[in-house]
C-alpha cells in the first residue's frame, strides 16, 4: 500500500502550493467555461467518497482524480480476479489475488499524486459509511449489489450529502443524481428493491461509458455546472443507442424521504 511517484502534497484544502492556476496538469481544463481557476480551486477543496473500485469505480476514480478533486476516499472489500479485467483497467493479470484497495491506491497515487487518496479495504457498513462521509461533499455509488448501495445512500442522507448512483448490466446502465435531503431518494428509484443476482454479463466499454457519465455528473454537481439534474435518472442502452433522462417520482410512502411517513430520528 506504499505511496510512490512523488507522494502526497496535502489534501482537500491543504495544498502545499499556492494554487492550481499555474499547474500545467490542469491546463487543458482550466479554459473550460464554468470551470476556470475558481472551479479548479473548488475541486481541490472537495472530498468525494466512492463505494466500489470495480468496473464503475475505475473510470470514476480515474476521472475524479484526473480532474483534481482534492481528496478521494474509496472503499472496496474484494481481491482482483481475472474476470474483472474486461472492464477494470486499474488492475493487471499479475495482480490477480491481490487486494483491490492496495493495488488501486498505488496506481491512483502514481497517476494523480496531487490528490489525497485514501482506501478502506473492508465491506461497507453504516458506521464505516458515516465515518467516511463525515467531511465529504459528495458520495458516489459504484457498488455491485443493492444492499451496499442502500447502506451508502442511507448514510449519505444522514450526512445530508448528495449521491451520484450508477449501475450497469449487459449493454445497459443508469446514472442517478440524488439530493442529500428531501425527495427523491434511492428507495424512490427502486420501490421494489433489487434482489441480489449472480454477477451480470457486462461489456467493459459500457461500464466505461456509465462510469464516465457518473464522473461528469459528480463534477457538474460539485461545480454547479449546467442544468440541475438532481432528482433525475439517466437510462443508458448502448445496444439500442438510447440515453433518456427522466425525473424520479417521489414516493408518497417512501420510508426515507416522504414527509408523510413518520421516521425515528437517528
Amino acid at each position: 500500500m506504499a505511496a510512490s511517484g512523488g507522494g502526497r502534497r496535502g489534501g482537500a484544502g491543504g495544498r502545499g502550493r499556492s494554487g492550481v492556476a499555474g499547474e500545467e496538469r490542469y491546463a487543458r481544463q482550466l479554459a473550460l467555461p464554468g470551470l476556470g481557476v475558481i472551479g479548479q480551486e473548488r475541486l481541490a477543496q472537495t472530498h468525494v467518497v466512492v463505494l466500489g473500485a470495480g468496473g464503475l469505480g475505475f473510470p470514476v476514480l480515474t476521472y475524479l482524480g484526473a480532474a483534481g478533486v482534492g481528496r478521494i476516499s474509496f472503499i472496496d472489500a474484494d481481491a482482483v480476479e481475472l474476470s474483472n479485467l474486461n472492464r477494470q483497467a486499474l488492475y493487471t493479470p499479475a495482480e490477480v489475488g491481490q487486494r483491490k484497495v492496495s493495488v488501486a491506491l498505488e496506481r491512483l497515487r502514481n497517476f494523480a499524486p496531487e490528490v489525497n487518496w485514501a482506501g478502506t479495504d473492508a465491506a461497507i457498513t453504516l458506521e464505516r459509511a458515516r465515518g467516511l462521509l463525515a467531511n465529504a461533499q459528495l458520495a458516489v455509488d459504484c457498488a455491485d449489489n443493492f444492499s451496499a448501495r442502500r447502506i451508502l445512500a442511507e448514510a449519505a442522507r444522514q450526512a445530508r450529502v448528495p449521491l451520484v448512483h450508477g449501475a450497469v448490466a449487459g449493454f445497459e446502465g443508469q446514472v442517478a443524481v440524488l439530493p442529500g435531503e428531501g425527495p427523491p431518494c434511492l428507495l424512490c428509484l427502486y420501490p421494489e428493491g433489487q434482489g441480489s443476482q449472480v454477477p451480470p454479463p457486462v461489456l467493459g466499454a459500457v461500464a466505461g461509458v456509465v462510469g464516465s457519465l457518473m464522473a461528469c455528473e459528480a463534477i457538474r454537481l460539485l461545480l454547479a455546472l449546467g442544468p440541475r439534474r438532481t432528482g433525475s435518472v439517466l437510462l443508458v442502452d448502448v445496444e439500442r443507442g438510447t440515453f433518456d433522462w427522466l425525473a424520479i417520482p417521489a414516493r408518497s410512502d417512501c420510508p426515507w424521504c416522504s414527509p408523510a411517513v413518520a421516521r425515528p430520528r437517528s
Partner: protein
Amino acid sequence: MMTVYLKGGGLLREYLQPDVDEYTRRVEVAEGRTLRQILEAIGIRPVHVAMAFVGNRLVNLAYVPSDGETITLRPPVQGG
C-alpha cells in the same frame, strides 16, 4: 381489447420476444389491465422488469396503459 407496445433491449429481449421490430412486442390486452398483469399474461415475471417508462415518465408496475401506448421496460441493472 386494445394494443400496447412493450419495448426492451439487452438482457430483457430473451423474455420479451420482440415481434414488431428488434426491440418491440405488440400485445393485445383488455382495457384497464395494469402493467404487472400484462407482463404476467405474456409470461414475463415482474421480477425481470426493474423499471418502466412511457415517454419521459417513469412508471411502476401498477401503471395502466392506454390504447396504442409504448412502454419501455428495463431489466434489473445493479452491477458495478
